[in-house]
């Protein structure tokens, strides 16, 4: 094969991007201290150049994958000529080096988007870009010095690659990492706005206003990313679970929890001008937790299904990076924030306080997840042995916290800003309360199997409570001159966000309490029964895919009435290059239940050990997350972020008018 020099250009572009990131980080910093507008003005073109260079670098790496250039160590380790083209492309972010490049590209993309935003004063923009530049410099140094995806294996070029990890050969995994990174890295923008505000000392509510759409979009991406990961785990790992409290899942959940808190806290700060220092701290926390997660996944300090290769050298570099970024921002926070004093008052029963309460619950939940994740590490470091913290710990703490969160969520929706009379609130919530308690606590828990379960009752009460209060809130919003059409997009966004959360609770409640899992021996033409459904193994087929060989079972499913509802075809695959067996589950899905069949081990020539799951309402988990994210999208498209009037208002605020 002809030698391609693409990777060398890619690496060159990467190094130039590092140079540009340095310009973007340092020149505005110096300019702001020496008061030279020209130096500040370098930030924007440097950000554009960095984005372009990283995009070139990324495209060149992708081309190396498409052209099967196995002289690259990274390509050789993660791709194979037999791989379909779309998996070759997604293999680019299938392991450490490439996913890091994707992370950087996304950071540069967010930076680029910020640099295009209108209505930001030049000085604020330069500061924000400078902070983002520093984050980028750190990560680029990490890539260039420890994790270069363009390293060649010369002169002995492998004939073929070691293949992409079969677990990652799945459509869900094409999109899961990019979406997740869009979320993690998106919080860097809010972080940059917060630091820029601390840096300048201009801590009015303007920064909260500017940060809100960025935070909400990052949050929406992260929500979809986590949901997609959970869905992937559900159908790809073959265990039928949707959340495992695995360290890497926890790493994504922590910034999501604080990010949710941040989104609400920004709303209070923008609308009411209170809790400014708390919001700033949350902005720093959220991005810091993204970085902590990044560290946990890539340094090999924790054992996880998803962890990347164990490399202490990289881990050390990352720890330094983490210490500098988080340490410096918390130091800036501690030094700069004391000047802040809010002159706004609020009473104990007000939206302000209820939102703060929910904020605290979310942060406590996040800290509790962090503790559970780090606990094995801490014990080990103290010499008390190796343990692992399992789902019982997380469930025991997480579930009550979420119940409490739900109660405040509904209350907060119907409470006014600043202060509210209890009498007035009572008038608004009594109907919702009665419906919730009667239906959710007393009636509905009986419906499914004729027995009353406490957890079902609690879960359904919560679902109904959020539903009824959300609809009530929407109804109140419609009582203007324009009626239902007058409801603003951000109000609607909030509605969908909360309904989405309720649907997640619904899915979790139902599947955790009524789900069933059975390991069965299935023999050809001998039906077995689970939850009234009959499963008959009809045939076993051996087939070959592009890069695997597979045993496929044909299983007929009859419903309790004896009617054939589907023929499922689960597979057990062996990916030949890595010699890795994989379970390909078959799912008969529905809004009310999933029936899930996975192949275990071959027992005899005509019998297999099979795993059958019955999962009621499990879809609502992911649908709920999608609906919540849709709410986020609606909120960002609100007119006040785009209309001309809003822009003028912003400019007025910038000039120090308001």
């Amino acid at each position: 094969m002809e030698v391609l020099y693409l990777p060398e250009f890619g690496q060159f572009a990467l190094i130039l991007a590092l140079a540009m990131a340095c310009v973007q980080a340092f020149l505005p910093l110096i300019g702001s201290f020496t008061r030279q507008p020209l130096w500040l003005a370098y930030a924007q073109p440097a950000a554009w150049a960095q984005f372009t260079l990283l995009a070139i670098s990324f495209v060149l790496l992708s081309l190396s994958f498409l052209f099967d250039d196995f002289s690259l160590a990274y390509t050789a380790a993660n791709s194979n000529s037999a791989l379909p083209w779309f998996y070759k492309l997604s293999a680019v972010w299938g392991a450490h080096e490439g996913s890091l490049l994707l992370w950087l590209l996304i950071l540069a993309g967010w930076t680029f988007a910020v640099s295009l935003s209108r209505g930001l004063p030049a000085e604020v923009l330069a500061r924000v870009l400078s902070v983002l530049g520093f984050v980028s410099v750190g990560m680029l140094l990490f890539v260039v010095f420890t994790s270069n995806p363009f390293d060649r294996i010369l002169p002995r070029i492998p004939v073929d690659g070691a293949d992409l990890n079969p677990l990652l050969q799945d459509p869900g995994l094409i999109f899961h990492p990019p979406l997740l990174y869009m979320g993690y890295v998106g919080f860097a923008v809010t972080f940059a706005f917060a630091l820029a505000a601390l840096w300048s000392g201009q801590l009015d509510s303007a920064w909260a206003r500017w940060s809100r759409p960025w935070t909400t979009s990052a949050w929406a991406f992260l929500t979809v990313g986590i949901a997609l990961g959970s869905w992937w785990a559900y159908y790809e790992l073959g265990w039928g679970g949707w959340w495992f409290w695995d360290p890497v899942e926890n790493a994504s959940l922590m910034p999501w929890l604080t990010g949710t808190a941040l989104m609400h806290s920004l709303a209070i700060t923008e609308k009411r001008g209170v809790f400014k220092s708390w919001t700033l701290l949350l902005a720093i926390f959220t991005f810091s937790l993204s970085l902590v997660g990044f560290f946990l996944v890539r340094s090999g300090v924790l054992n996880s299904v998803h962890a990347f290769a164990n490399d202490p050298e990289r881990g050390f570099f990352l720890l330094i990076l983490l210490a500098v970024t988080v340490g410096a921002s918390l130091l800036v926070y501690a030094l700069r924030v004391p000047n802040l004093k809010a002159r706004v008052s609020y009473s104990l029963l007000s939206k302000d306080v209820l939102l703060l309460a929910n904020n605290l619950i979310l942060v406590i939940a996040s800290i509790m997840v962090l503790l559970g994740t780090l606990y094995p590490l801490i014990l080990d470091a103290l010499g008390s042995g190796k343990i692992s913290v399992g789902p019982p710990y997380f469930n025991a703490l997480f579930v009550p916290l979420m119940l409490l969160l739900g109660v405040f969520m509904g209350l907060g929706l119907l409470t006014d800003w600043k202060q509210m009379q209890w009498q007035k609130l009572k008038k608004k919530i009594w109907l919702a309360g009665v419906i919730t308690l009667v239906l959710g606590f007393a009636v509905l828990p009986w419906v499914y199997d004729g027995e009353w379960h406490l957890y079902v009752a609690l879960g359904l009460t919560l679902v109904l409570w959020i539903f009824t209060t959300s609809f009530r809130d929407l109804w109140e919003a419609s009582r203007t001159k324009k009626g239902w059409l007058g409801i603003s997009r951000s109000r609607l966004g909030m509605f969908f966000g909360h309904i989405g959360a309720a649907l997640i609770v619904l899915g979790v409640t139902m599947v955790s309490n009524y789900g069933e899992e059975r390991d069965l021996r299935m023999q050809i033409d001998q039906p077995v029964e689970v939850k009234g459904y009959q499963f008959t193994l009809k045939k076993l087929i051996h087939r070959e895919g592009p890069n695997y060989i597979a045993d496929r079972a044909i299983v007929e499913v009859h419903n309790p009435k004896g009617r054939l509802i589907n023929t499922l075809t689960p597979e057990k695959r062996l990916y030949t290059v890595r010699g890795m067996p994989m379970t390909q589950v078959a799912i008969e899905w529905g809004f009310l239940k999933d029936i899930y069949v996975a192949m275990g081990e071959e027992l005899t020539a005509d019998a297999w050990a099979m795993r059958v799951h019955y999962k009621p309402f499990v879809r609502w988990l992911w649908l709920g997350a999608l609906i919540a994210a849709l709410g986020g999208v609606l909120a960002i498209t609100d007119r006040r972020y785009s209309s001309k009037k809003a822009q003028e208002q912003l400019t007025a605020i910038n000039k120090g008018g308001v």
Partner: protein
Amino acid sequence: MKRFLLFLPLIVFLLVGIFLYKGLSMDPSARESALIGQPLPEFSLPRLTNPNLLVTREDLIGEVFLLNVWGSWCPSCYDEHEEIVRMAQAGVPIVGLNYKDEPAKAFRYLSQLGNPYTQILVEEDGLRELAFNLGVYGAPETFLIDSEGIVRYHLAGVITPQLVDQVIMPEVQKWQKNR
């Protein structure tokens, strides 16, 4: 006092950082094997080169040796092979346990990478013999067995150059002296 509170997040973070730093030098997958200090289990397994010849525990005991569990299907085994060759060249007897593999693939593996093993036992998939009794859950895993037939060291995971120089070779020498 209020000022101090503002530094609290930073202090907490630094504490977490210290633990993370300590965590870097620890291997989460290194679990103490319950077999350390226990005799090597009894077994009877064929040799890769001569399947008709069965090897038992008694055939191996007598000198300090390493037992390395490997398979051609295991990507990490390729990574550590160079280190195994290096130790074999340094005079350490290493017995291979070809685990859940096919003979043809195992031979190809050895012809490509070289054969550092004094002998190779074969434990086919589904056979509940040595690897099963040793609690092996994957490959590569490596055990150090002393001249009395007692397991003295166990590694679940890849042998790295540092591990060879700092842990495995010193352990081997320690138990060789102890005889």
